[in-house]
């Protein structure tokens, strides 16, 4: 087998095909694993410490999951750096000084993964529609995977009059109100996409102004990324209730995307009529729930920490261990938020409290 080159052509073909069998997924996952095992010394030693080798990893769920903290501590990459590579960085939700980095020597895999999946889960058969984006563009934020994702959505699926509603001081609310009113009048379905916290600001501004809109049938909303301390924390139920009431978009067309800088593929739900909604991904990503201390898959039906095997991650590591708690659900998984540090139950000091106590 050729371990020198990443199996990019095969991955592109795999993403383009309609679905796959378990055996097909395993075959490509193992090939990618073997390539990364040989190409990246730090990944190899990580696997070896867990007793995982090319010889004994037999299926995708045998592949050790690399904790996302590793993206902060080192350069997880297989190909040497090039001047043209794109680097996506985490927003540093917990520690601003140390951001995780994901190196993309080429974006064709990421882009195909995004567009194939987006077309199906968000566009749902519509070729293009007018879009409003509540997030900075990828010139303002060249290291944001979300900025790239949204720019790609706009250029690939947006009509020509699609635009960003961002000003240097935040969301351009006046521009947004005008555009929403225009959509209301025209009757043409409209799509609003952005960070979840941007929508909280929109909700708050609409409430303050005493305004609301009834967007035409077929209009939809995509929010992603949680609040990240950028807005007040709104429970999911209140969030989607407010969105559908204030913008007139039914909750089954309020779609949440779950993505990560450390991945090349996204997960979506089929709307948020019921929360928490079931998230699922396309055929080139598979997820399992693990006990983070051991890395082992938890018994069927139990909660665990989500680990994702993403065949789109050809240059970093194919399987990552998140910090998100998941619960198995019909057709996918429920996302139950971040695993918080453990509270001390006894009399010994827990790390969290210690960190707070020494913080200035």
């Amino acid at each position: 087998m050729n371990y020198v080159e990443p199996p990019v052509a095969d991955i592109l073909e795999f993403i383009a095909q309609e679905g796959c069998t378990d055996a097909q997924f395993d075959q490509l996952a193992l090939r990618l694993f073997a390539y990364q095992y040989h190409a990246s010394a730090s990944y190899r030693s990580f696997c070896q410490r867990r007793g995982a080798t090319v010889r004994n990893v037999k299926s995708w769920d045998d592949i050790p999951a690399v904790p996302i903290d590793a993206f902060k501590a080192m350069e997880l990459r297989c190909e040497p750096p090039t001047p043209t590579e794109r680097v996506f960085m985490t927003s540093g939700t917990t520690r601003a000084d140390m951001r995780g980095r994901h190196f993309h020597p080429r974006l064709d895999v990421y882009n195909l993964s995004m567009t194939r999946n987006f077309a199906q889960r968000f566009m749902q058969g519509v070729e293009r529609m007018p879009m409003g984006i509540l997030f900075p563009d990828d010139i303002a934020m060249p290291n944001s995977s979300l900025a790239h994702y949204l720019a790609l959505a706009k250029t690939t699926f947006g009509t020509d009059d699609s635009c960003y509603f961002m000003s240097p001081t935040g969301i351009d609310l006046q521009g947004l109100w005008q555009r929403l009113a225009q959509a209301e009048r025209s009757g043409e379905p409209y799509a609003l996409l952005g960070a979840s916290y941007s929508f909280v600001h929109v909700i708050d501004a609409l409430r303050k102004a005493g305004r609301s809109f009834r967007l035409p049938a077929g209009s939809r909303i995509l929010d992603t990324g949680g609040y990240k301390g950028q807005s007040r924390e709104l429970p999911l139920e209140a969030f989607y209730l407010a969105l559908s009431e204030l913008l007139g978009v039914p909750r089954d067309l309020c779609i949440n995307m779950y993505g990560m800088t450390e991945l090349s593929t996204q997960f979506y739900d089929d709307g948020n009529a019921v929360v928490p909604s079931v998230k699922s991904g396309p055929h080139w990503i598979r997820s399992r729930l693990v006990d983070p201390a051991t890395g082992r898959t938890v018994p069927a039906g139990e909660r665990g920490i989500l680990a994702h095997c993403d065949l789109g991650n050809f240059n970093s590591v194919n399987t990552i261990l998140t910090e998100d708690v998941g619960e198995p659900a019909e057709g996918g998984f429920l996302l139950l938020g971040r695993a918080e540090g453990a509270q001390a139950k006894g009399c010994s000091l827990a790390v969290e409290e210690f960190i707070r106590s020494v913080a200035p």
Partner: protein
Amino acid sequence: MSVIRVEAGYLPGLSSSDVQWRTLPFDRDGQRVEVAVPELSPSQMDALAKRVRDASARTLRTLSVSDIIDIIDRAVSRLLDRDDAYRRQIDALLPLVSGYAAEMVHLGLTGFFKTFRAPQLHRFVAEDFANPKVLDGFQPAIKGGAVRAFGPRLLVHSWAGNVPALALWSLVCGLLVKAGNIGKLPSAEPLFAGWFARLLVEVHPPLADCLAVVWWRGAGGEGADALYAQADAVVAYGGNEALQAIQRRLPVTTRFLAHGHKLGFGVVSAAALDALKAPALARRAAWDVMRYDQQGCYSPQIFYVQRGGQIAPREFAGYLASELANLQRRYPRRPLDLAESTAVAKWRQSIEWKPSTPHRQGREDLLIGDPVAAWSVAYTDDMQALAPTALQRSIVVAGIDALDDVAPAVAASAVFLQTAGIAATPRELYRLAEQLGAAGVTRVSAIGSMSAPEAGWHHDGRFNLLDLVRMTEIEHSAEAAADPFAPYEL
């Protein structure tokens, strides 16, 4: 799944039907324990506080300290009897509620209860009172006149922790100073205190109204306020934030004795590291790590091990790892919930993925133990400041050049210091104790005894009993002034 239901707490003067109950479920290995805990209304709490305070003034205060020691001793001897109904209940249910291995709980509790037998309790009182009779009546003072110690009329305890039976410490202290005692059960182990209260009353029925054991959720609401308002003194265990929350609701005149979370550590001198002594020492060190999965305030987080002995610090870390592996077979670690498991994983990751820095050439960081093992030993060649690990049997071994390097490494955590386990020569022991004591350490023990404080220890460096009492002095002048009024004076 079979279900065991237990009613927790001890509420003199209230019948079960008068009280609202809440159920705390505990699931282990297909066995469910449902513990019903009482939630008292403010007026019930108020009445309870009055009842306990008045009864203690009537009953407990008329007993001598020796009488009280005798009563506690009789209760504790029943706890030490493995055939006694109370002990059987403790051995059966505390492992289920706490999740700790039954063997570990049994062994730990027997050692713990032994420190509350009569001779140990007499020593405990003598530690704080040169003349224990000051607790019973006025005693001559050396400076002239007389002195007597009075305990608080109502002592409120806020217990915490999943170290089983922790409540016994402060409850016994309260009884020895003849206080009325009302304790709040911790949700993690809501059983022992209520059982002990009932056992005491069985042993000596007149104590029936002298103590009570209650519960409330989190920081508590108006019921807790009603109780705190009547307390003369409050003993509380918990994290600093929880302690501060309690302190904020107390009147400034209420004495507040807080036992916050602590960090323990060990120091091993090169002198203790020969081929014969090092493995035995590692076994004792592992025991301190294993005991209650490091949830105790005395539990070690790091062992500083001196270079230059026959056995290198790195080898000592290896011994420690194999001893932890051995102990895991006999006393398996508590099953972790997702949050605890995440904490352990993150701690391990922080070592595994430590960014490489160029100046560390030739020095190594090492994580010993398979990720699936229920323990972790991290070895580092670098000097490391004292900091908590993820607990759950995760321990750091740091190689050091000189024992004098330890005090500066722990000094930054002064407010969290308590126990230091030391294996060193007598001369080194005293030198270290001097340095560590100055840095904030309040207890120096042998390695292997860190997790089993001796009877009469001064918890967090304080006087367990003296801190509870108030002294009343008859000054010499009063005595002299009384003399002329005596009928036999002409």
